[in-house]
């Protein structure tokens, strides 16, 4: 078995026992990136020499018997949405194509403190808006299981990188399913922690009440390790929870006796692909064979989750993305061309005697904002900004945004009620396996519906994990989603690990060209 086929936990054991060096590990994954990433496009950029320099320094410290961090020598890929001081953070957008972060996000600082070897930056849907990574303005990522299909999104680059074993670990972000959905479509393990469990400081904001960074790897054991390195209260993030830190990597291998799983009929409706339904039900039977009991539960507001999400998330996005104005950072339009355009319009209106038109004409500053933003943002980002601006505007705020916030509370109450009688909710993570590139780009609403089973966890703030549980007839991965009450990441990881001890879906690998 080659080094890159090992799990992160196995590699770490070898590193700690000095059976292998950090440099050898980094080089092995760099070799795979160089050999395979052209066909997959998981990485936007990677810095082999910087990674090897970090690895070398860690090897020296280990050899000298000095203390090393929790992930010492393990390569980690990071979604290009998390600030790393001095590095580009493009967010998959032309508007930040040349933006270098002036500070470290708390997540990246945590990875550095844990002595992770930062391998490179992964592709994403622009500003995390999308379910296929097709909205990236800077590159295309393909599903390693079938390169004519999407890896899902928005953390498609991170998911593809792990699935193709270009990295043992990756950090993604999840606002409406953007870790769990691509994890499901790429056959890997991905988790969205409880809202507030992982700091959002330096995580470029899409929707501030929904965003969470989380771990992606080939197993729950590996996800536990990465989560432990990045979770925790952060005074720099006022939405960060002050909960005691948990040694997830130590507890993950302890099975849970007397587990009760809840199945909601709302998750097994008519739109569910037959192969997905069969694989998920088989996974439930595995849990029953491990001693779990299954209970029917109901989440009555499930059908309203996507609509609720697609008011709240764009509304928050319209506010968060107002900062991209061509003034403080990012793309600014060509001012000379902009002034010429304005002049031409002014002359035309003057010649026509259009006083009202002249009055309404943009000032240079406003025109600069409008052109810079329109040149820099892609169509999906514009669509969501428009949707959010509309939902928040005078006359519509109560009917849309405020209404959505009330339905959000009803959705949360559904989960609170269900968790009174079950430990976890189990179901499919997506209604169907990976779809073809280009299939949904012209139908925004169809694209939004890929988030059907995942948005509710973000709305409710609860943690969720996606683990591989089978394959479609066409050989595409299928993911099982488990959801838990707030702050029960430990329960999720242990339950996921139980499944991975009894099955081997998570060890399957795509055949790469």
């Amino acid at each position, binding site marked *: 078995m080659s080094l890159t086929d090992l799990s992160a936990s196995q590699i770490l054991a070898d590193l700690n026992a000095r059976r292998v060096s950090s440099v050898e590990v980094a080089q092995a994954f760099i070799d795979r990136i160089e050999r395979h990433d052209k066909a997959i496009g998981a990485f936007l950029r990677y810095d082999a020499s910087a990674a090897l320099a970090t690895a070398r320094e860690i090897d020296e410290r280990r050899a000298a018997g000095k203390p090393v961090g929790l992930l010492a020598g393990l390569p980690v890929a990071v979604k290009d949405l998390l600030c790393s001081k001095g590095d580009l953070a493009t967010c998959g957008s032309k508007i930040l194509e040349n933006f270098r972060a002036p500070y470290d996000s708390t997540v990246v600082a945590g990875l550095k403190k844990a002595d992770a070897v930062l391998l490179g930056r992964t592709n994403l849907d622009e500003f995390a808006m999308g379910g296929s990574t097709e909205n990236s303005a800077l590159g295309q990522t393909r599903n390693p299981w079938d390169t004519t299909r999407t890896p899902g999104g928005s953390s498609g680059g991170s998911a593809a990188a792990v699935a193709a074993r270009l990295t043992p670990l990756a950090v993604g972000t999840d606002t409406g399913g953007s870790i769990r959905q691509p994890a499901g479509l790429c056959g890997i393990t991905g988790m969205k922690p409880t809202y507030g469990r992982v700091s959002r400081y330096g995580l470029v904001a899409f929707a501030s009440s929904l965003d969470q960074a989380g771990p992606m790897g080939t197993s729950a054991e590996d996800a536990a390790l990465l989560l432990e390195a990045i979770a925790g209260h952060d005074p720099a993030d006022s939405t960060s929870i002050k909960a005691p830190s948990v040694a997830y990597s130590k507890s993950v291998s302890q099975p849970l006796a007397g587990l009760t799983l809840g199945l909601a009929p709302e998750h097994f409706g008519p739109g569910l692909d037959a192969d997905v339904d069969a694989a998920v039900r088989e996974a439930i039977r595995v849990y029953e064979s491990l001693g779990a009991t299954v209970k029917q539960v109901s989440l009555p507001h499930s059908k309203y989750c996507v609509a609720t999400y697609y008011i709240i998330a764009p509304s928050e996005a319209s506010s968060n993305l107002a900062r991209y104005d061509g*003034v403080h950072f990012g793309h600014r339009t060509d001012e000379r061309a902009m002034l010429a355009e304005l002049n031409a319009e002014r002359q035309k209106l003057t010649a026509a005697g259009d006083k009202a038109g002249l009055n309404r004409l943009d000032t240079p500053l406003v025109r600069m904002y409008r052109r810079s933003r329109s040149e820099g943002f892609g169509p999906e980002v*514009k669509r969501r900004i428009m949707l959010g601006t509309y939902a928040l505007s005078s006359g519509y705020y109560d009917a849309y945004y405020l209404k959505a916030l009330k*339905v959000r509370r009803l959705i949360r109450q559904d989960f609170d009620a269900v968790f009174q009688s079950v430990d976890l909710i189990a179901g499919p993570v997506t209604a169907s396996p990976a779809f073809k590139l280009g299939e949904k780009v012209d139908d925004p609403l169809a694209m939004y519906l890929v988030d059907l089973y995942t948005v509710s966890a973000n709305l409710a703030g609860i943690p969720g994990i996606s683990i591989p549980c089978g394959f479609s007839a066409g050989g595409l991965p299928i993911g099982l989603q488990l959801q838990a009450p707030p702050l029960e990441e430990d329960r999720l990881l242990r339950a996921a690990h139980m499944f991975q001890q009894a099955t081997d879906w998570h060890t399957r690998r795509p055949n790469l060209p």
Partner: protein
Amino acid sequence: MPLSREQVEKVSLLARLQLSEEELVLMTAQLDAIVGYIEQLGELDTEHVEPMAHPIELSDVFRPDQSRPSTERSEILATAPHADGQFYLVPAVLGD
């Protein structure tokens, strides 16, 4: 109620976006479809429900009122498209 082109133009100004003719037509149709889908929330009776803006309802998260070093101005201005070492430079706001 279908979204009108005028409404979309107005929203584009609020959003500080400038849409081309094709974008305006496409956007009007797409937003209309999405808003139509979203309107199903009107089916629910939420008269006595408190809005929930944040899933973890924290309040009054303060830090001690102590001054401390911030990021260097030069580092912040380094990301600006147009700056003079002290300020961000933009087209004139007041006057012609």
